[in-house]
């Protein structure tokens, strides 16, 4: 436990002292700021069935695919390239402590990024005045959405860790993470969109597709609907990926 705590503090410190983290955060906030701004503009012209915050969360796959691989790519692949991961494992710290500390650091950073998004609705509400539209702040959607991102982030970050453990190239790790997350995010929607006529033989895919509809899960959470299925999916997926990462690290050269 001491190794985990020491490594987590070291990882958090390294992450937040690195200019790349701040650049990635700036990119993240720019991306969400633009989406939020256009959503407010759209709502101001025509009444929409969604709030600006809901609109941002519907675009959730975009930062997931563009930003998260940038956060996960350095933690294991970079250390494997430099050889410092092997040196770390010559101490009494176990591979499990190393992997979970790095995972927790990236996950916390990802969650902090999303919490920082709350600044936009807050600023918009302040600037426009609450009398304009009380839904601009939309605290319930904001809280539910961030809670979902924290939950799903367990699986998403662990996928990034697993990809990083398989290569010494941070670039390749980011690409592998991007492909895996893309597959996970869009596969549910794609399978769901299959035409039922003439595709009966693919009917068995409907159920897994229902489990994998990430954006649907986010909308449920943002509406206050908490289903146990996605909770189990993300928690077990995370445990599986982290377990495989530990095995990969223990057997890596």
């Amino acid at each position, binding site marked *: 436990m001491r190794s985990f705590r*020491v490594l987590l503090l070291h990882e958090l410190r390294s992450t937040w002292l690195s200019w790349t983290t701040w650049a990635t955060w700036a990119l993240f906030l720019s991306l969400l700021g633009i989406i939020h701004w256009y959503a407010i503009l759209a709502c101001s012209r025509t009444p929409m069935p969604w709030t600006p915050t809901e609109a941002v969360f519907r675009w959730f796959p975009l930062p997931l695919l563009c930003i998260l691989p940038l956060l996960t790519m350095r933690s294991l692949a970079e250390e494997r390239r430099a050889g*410092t991961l*092997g*040196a770390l494992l*010559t*101490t*009494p710290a176990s591979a499990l402590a190393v992997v979970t500390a790095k995972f927790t650091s990236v996950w916390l950073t990802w969650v902090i990024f999303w919490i920082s998004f709350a600044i936009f609705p807050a600023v918009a509400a302040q600037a426009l005045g609450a009398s304009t539209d009380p839904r601009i702040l939309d605290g319930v959607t904001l809280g539910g959405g961030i809670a979902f991102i924290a939950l799903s982030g367990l699986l998403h970050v662990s996928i990034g860790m697993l990809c990083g453990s398989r290569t010494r190239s941070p670039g390749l790790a980011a690409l592998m993470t991007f492909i895996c997350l893309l597959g996970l995010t869009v596969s549910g929607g794609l399978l769901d969109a299959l035409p039922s006529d003439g595709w009966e033989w693919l009917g068995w895919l409907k159920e897994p597709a229902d489990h994998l509809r990430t954006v649907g899960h986010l909308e449920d959470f943002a509406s206050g609907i908490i289903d146990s299925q996605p909770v189990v999916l993300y928690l077990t997926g995370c445990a599986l990926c982290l377990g495989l990462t530990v095995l990969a690290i223990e057997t890596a050269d």
Partner: protein
Amino acid sequence: MADNVTQPELALEANRLTKRYGALTAIEDITFKVGPGEIVGFLGPNGAGKSTTLRILAGRLLATSGRATIWGESVALEPAKAKQHLAYMPENNPLPEDLRIREYLELRARLKGVDEDQVELRVDQSMHDCDLQGRAGMLIAHLSKGFRQRVGIADALLAEPKIILLDEPTIGLDPHQILGIRDLLRSLRGKMAVLISSHILAEVEQVCDRVIILNRGRIVAQGRTDELRRDLLPSRGHRVVAACTLAELERLTRAMDTQSTCREVRMVGDGWCEFRITLSPDSPARDQLLSSLVSAGLRVREVAEEQAGLEDIFLAATRRDNREVRT
């Protein structure tokens, strides 16, 4: 730092370690022991299997078969316990570029289980031992190769382990730095067991109590250098400078030892010649060579027994192994 109340007889034991990568055998049947406080040299040409063996002992590589124990703990079955007694500095000594020396050593001390109130003290002591005090705040990325090696050794000393494994510790160092590291290693004798992998024979000869010689993944010789000298190079030569002919000298030495050989090396000048005489291993003439030559009426300026160095021992051991492989 965990500490066993009872000290085991052996600091480190490798028992029939074998590592195969498919059809390629990196090391085979490697068996040796290192006692507490002993400094042992691990010698071998490039690709002999030194680093593979050290990585297995450090728990960074699983052996295909065999057993390694560190301070009585199995490296494969109890890696965490074994690593508490061990420090390992790998050959290329990878270090995080973005940390300062003190930050890095503090992190390593905490990971190695040094008590929180002792961390600063241990880091200061290790930096002092490795002459790093003036550079505590420097970024590792800005350090020269020599200073990076020192940081690696300071890291190895941090938690006062029972055993230190050093893979080519002086590679890339200048002569002053090499002397400093040698002195440091000598100062560890009796305090911790040290296994030094190197292909620099002079370094091992000057520092180590014992040597283990590897060739083609197998141990071809091990023991104290004087034992190995006796075993591998039994026919020691004598350098003789005398004013005589080769035939005269040969006649005299044959009278003392029928199996002796004699050859002229060079003319020294003014009638003096340098010869090399090789006597049989158990010849009584060894101790009486000078007196015998003088009493026979020869004018002798010098008689010196040639001392085989570690380089000769190493070459003899690897040559013998290569011959055995060929036959």
